[in-house]
Every structure is written in C-alpha cells, then in structure tokens.
C-alpha cells in the first residue's frame, strides 16, 4: 500500500467560483496514473462519503491525457458565508492525502 500523497505530483483543492470547489489529483507519468485509476480506490462514492454529499453532487472525471483526476462538488458552505472555514477552499483536499492505494499488487505486474 502507498498513500496517495506519495504517488501524486500534486493534490490540490480550490474554489471554482463561490459555490463549487474542485479537486485536482495529478501524476507525473501515465503508468502511475493508470495504476491508481485501475486500483478502483477513487470513486464517486468515496468522494460523496468523504465530503458528506450525495453521489449526484460529485462530478468525477478521469482525465487520461492529463494523467489526472478531477472532482468538482458544491462547497460545504458557500464561500465567505458565515461558517465557512476555507475562503479559497485551498485545504479541502487534505483528507485525500492519506488514502491508501494498493501499490504492492501492481509492483508485481
């Protein structure tokens, strides 16, 4: 197993205008990207569960050409509204860093 933060070249989150946030998970090379994709760990249901929203509110795109995954979802609180904790939504990717990806299995292939 390897943590996502040790496989990706960049995991980040950011506002996509005041009512949405978007998460980018990027890899240096196609092989790592493919292996993470094929591990099946990153799914709509996982993101819905982590961010406590309905699966219908998760836009999940595997961007093969960019060796990256893109996840967009409504912000938990609209940007800057009372109770917002992250004006740029810049730290909301953090729980993803610790995700365990089954890495040993693909080392053998």
């Amino acid at each position, binding site marked *: 197993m390897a943590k996502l933060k040790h496989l990706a070249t960049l995991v980040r989150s950011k506002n996509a205008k005041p009512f949405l946030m978007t998460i980018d998970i990027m890899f240096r090379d196609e092989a790592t990207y493919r292996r993470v994709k094929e591990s099946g760990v990153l799914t709509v249901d996982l993101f819905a569960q982590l961010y406590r929203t309905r699966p219908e509110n998760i836009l999940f795109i595997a961007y093969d050409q960019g060796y990256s995954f*893109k996840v967009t979802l409504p912000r938990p609180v609209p940007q800057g509204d009372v109770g917002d904790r992250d004006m740029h939504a810049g730290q909301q990717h953090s729980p993803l860093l610790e995700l365990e990806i089954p890495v040993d299995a693909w080392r053998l292939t």
Partner: protein
Amino acid sequence: MAKEIVALAPTEIVGAGFSLESFERGLQANPDFIGCDAGSSDAGPFDLGSGETTSHDLRSIRRDLRVMLLAARARGIPLLIGSCGYAGGDPHIERYRRIVEEIAREENLHFRLAVIHAEQDKRSLLGKLREGRIKPLNPWGFTGESFGELSAATLERCERIVGCMGSEPYIEALDRGAEVILAGRSTDTSIFAALPLREGLSPGPVWHAAKILECAAAAVEKHGQPDCLMVRIGEEHFVVEPPSPALRCTPLSVLSHMLYENPSPFHLYEPSGMLDTSAARYVAVGDRAVKVTGSRFVPAERYTVKLEGAEKVGFRAIFIGGIRDSLLLGQLEEWMEEALRTFRAKVRSAYGDAVSPEDYQVVLRTYGKDGVMGPLEPVTGLVPHEVGLIGEVVARDQELANSICYQLRYTFQHLHYGGFEGLVTAIAYPFAPLTIPVGPVYRFVLNHVVEPEDPLELFPMEIVEV
C-alpha cells in the same frame, strides 16, 4: 504570411508583482498588446459587498500598473486591464482610474482611455427576472440551495451586483480607439481574447490561449513567484512560452492549467460559447515552449452574462486565543458545549427580550483539532497538545456583535473544567483588544446568468482623453 498575434500577460493579477527582467524579455518579442487580470471572486464577498479593494494592496497595484502603462505607451500597444479593483464594480474601477490618471500626470502620458462599467442596476435586473431572462448557472446539474431559481427578494437584498463581461465590450473599446482599457468585472479570458478575435483569428485557439494566459506564469512547470507569460496565436494554433529563461512550459503544465479553478478539464463556459479542449494536442517546442492545436470553440445558442452579487449578513466580532492545559484539552468538546450553554443563558439574562437567538450567529473554530475541515474532518479521537480557538459572533450591528462576542469570550475565559478547583483562565490571548470588531459581513448570493439584449447592453462605456 499567416497572421499572428503576440500577447503578453505580466502577472496573474495586478498587484501580485512580476520580474522586470522577464517583462523586458517579453517586450522584446514585440507583443501586440499587454493584458492583465485585476480581480476575482476568489478572496470572498467582502470587496464586492463593501466597494473596497482589500484583496490586493493598492501600493503594489500602483507599482504594477505604472510598469505596464509605461511599456504599453512607449510601444504604442493597447493595455487591457479587466476586473479592476478586484470586484469590478463602480467604486473599484474608479479607484483604478484615479491611479492610472495619477501615473499619467506624473509620467506625462497621453492616451485614449476606455472605462467599461460592469456594475448592474437592480431595477433593470428585476425587469429581466420578470421576463424570465435570469437563470441558474448549473450546467453540471448539482442539487442544493445554491443552484435554485433566483427570487426577486434575493436580488433586492444585494448590496452590489456585477456582470462578468465577455470580450465584446473590449472589442468595442478598441474599435473606438482606446489605447488603455480599464474594465469592470470580466471573465478572466475575455481580457486576452478580445484583440485576437478582433483581428479575425479563429476563436478556438484564441479562447484556449486566453485561458492559459489569464494566470500568467501559473501555467509553467514549477510555479514559484508570479511572473510573465507570453503567447503567440496563429490561425489554427498557439504557442505558449514564459519570457523568463528560468521557467519552462511543458505539455503537461499547459494542459493542466485548464484544470485550475475550472470544474472540467475540457470545457470552459464563456458568455458567447464554450471552449472545448477535448481534442487539443500539446507538443513541446524546444525546451521551454508548447504548441497547442485542436482547440475548438462552440458558440452558445444564447449569449449569457454571469452575475455576481453580495448581500450584507451583519457585522462580525471575534476573539482569538489558545488552549494548552492538557486537563482541559482532554475534555474539550464537553467543556465547549457547556460554555455555549452557559453563554446562551448569560445572553438571555443580560439582554432579556431585546435579543433573541435569531438575532446573532455564533461559530467556534478549534484549530489543531478540526479548524479547517470542521464536520468533514476524518481524524477524530486524538487529544491535541494545543488548540487555537476563534470565537465568532455575527449580529445585526457592530455594537451588538461586540457585546455578544464579549459575553462569549468572557464565558470561555473563566469557565471551570474538571480536575481543578477554583478560578481558572482558560484562554491565552495573543492580542488586546481581546474582543476584535471585524466589520460588515457579506455573502455571495447570485449563481445565475442573465440573457442581455446584446453583449454590450449591460456594460456602458466612457471614452476619455487622458
């Protein structure tokens, strides 16, 4: 020879700064124009609601504008600045106009200036709402409160509304001979798409190049400090290259920039249509440049302008403090719940019927525990060795917010906790005053587009000789 337009973006946002050396190198490529974004909604609703420019510093803005203005005038090329003053409303653009006029006086510059307004008249928008011409902006079909139909009441409550202009008002200003354009709220890309579109270049490469340019050197491989980016746009392609020899663009760094702050890596919605990069190809040119082909632009059936609006929620007061006592940290949640109960009882007793629980909101953030993620924090059950506490009260006026925040703060400060007897002081404050008045609080309320009569309708323009 095939037509080519060279565009130079000095920095990602006016005020962020850039290297003068890089800028000079960019100028040596003989750009046809200089463009720079000056605003966003990214720093929150305060600037839009208040009319102030707090998100970027005015002294730094003046420095950047001076360098750009001097270079553009020396070379006789247009300077296009969009989303002036951060929120791009009338007070924001006026602030930029004063700075630019001062620089012109100091440097003895003369030019034709276009000021394009983006602030919207509420009554006219109410008319558009009645005509069914304001619609939710939700191409992805999300559900929730933020994605519903607009009500007249919400529109009425807005402190200020701006429309995000497309490239057409810029093109109109250029047609009228503007040499410097100060525009209100704009889509980031419109600033850079206007001149190449006016020159008749194909919209696919133009809008894609504009998206890459809008954050300047953000599209380089290893983003460090804000710096310049240059794009050469041809008939069916564009080439992107950072002027600084220390930076490089790679196919991956350029295509990745489509991801930034954008819900989709393939589609970018503009007032006049949608940029589609799903068939784009990125090829390295030399070591530091990237050539992009295959970008498409799909014209929209209806022209739409995105609206941004902020309403005033109330006034905020806060206190900031730390907790280090391990006995207290071991029972933090229960202690905070008890503190809140005690506080609410004290508010009832202090104000009686004059203040009801609906008149104020309290938010507590415990940094070191779940300050950033709140209820989404997956790490639970650990006892931190130290916690930072920010107590926040939002109420209808500043005096009431200060007063209630005092009650909240004082309750926390001395509330007894299990394990010790006698008077305790539970909060370590770094600052006096202990209760900090923060000022008005706004929130974004519009997530909608309006269908105007034509692309210029919502954006009146002044042309003046400076």
